[in-house]
């Protein structure tokens, strides 16, 4: 199975990936983005740069209940993936085609930050994830 290995530093787990437009599986329009792995998030999400650069439109809204408020947020369909080549350590056979997950139904947020994607439990539950005390991380999927 494909796997990603990388080293995380600090108290956050950040990972570089590709974000693709939804719709046609053959449409590989994508942008590079940095993702935060967040096991406390039930769903994934994307920031304003991804929405703007991919020209995404929201077809869904959902109620967000947080510690301090309840409000509606726009949701966006998008796909995430990784290039399984020399740029990423992998035991998969090198290929020019990325590994792409099915469309995610994720929330959007408005303020730009130092990451563009939150990978929540909707993605992580499809993977095996290991975090070692020396910062080495492994994500196995497929």
């Amino acid at each position, binding site marked *: 199975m494909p796997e990603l290995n990388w080293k995380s530093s600090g108290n956050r787990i950040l990972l570089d990936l590709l974000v693709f*437009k*939804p*719709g*046609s599986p053959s449409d590989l329009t994508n942008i590079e983005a940095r993702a*935060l792995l*967040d*096991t*406390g*998030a*039930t*769903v994934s*999400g994307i920031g304003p740069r991804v929405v703007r650069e991919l*020209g*995404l*439109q*929201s*077809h*869904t*809204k*959902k*109620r*967000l*209940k*947080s*510690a*301090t408020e309840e409000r509606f947020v726009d949701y966006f*369909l998008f*796909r995430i993936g990784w290039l399984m080549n020399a740029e990423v350590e992998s035991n998969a056979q090198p290929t020019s085609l990325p590994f792409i997950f*099915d*469309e*995610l*139904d994720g*929330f959007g*947020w408005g303020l730009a930050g130092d990451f563009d994607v*939150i990978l*929540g439990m909707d993605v992580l539950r499809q993977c095996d994830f290991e975090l070692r005390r020396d910062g080495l991380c492994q994500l196995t999927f497929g």
Partner: protein
Amino acid sequence: MEHQIDTRRLKIEVDENYDFLQRNLSNLIPRQTGRYALLKSREIVSFYDRPGDAYRDGLRRFPDGIFSIQEVTDEALDLGFFSYAGT
């Protein structure tokens, strides 16, 4: 194509369809929980197991892109990192 959608009409469509689904949620929960409803003009067109399938069928049925997709669920969303930021 997606980039030509009338965003104002789309927002109104999403809002109206959301209200419609919420009013009918109790009837839908027993049989459709976790599935995705494709909605148009405050009517449910169909249900799908995956959001991408609902989206593709929505684009096929409604080329102007004016439709919405809602998951059938009554669960509150918890966004972890953001939920507790600034509290």
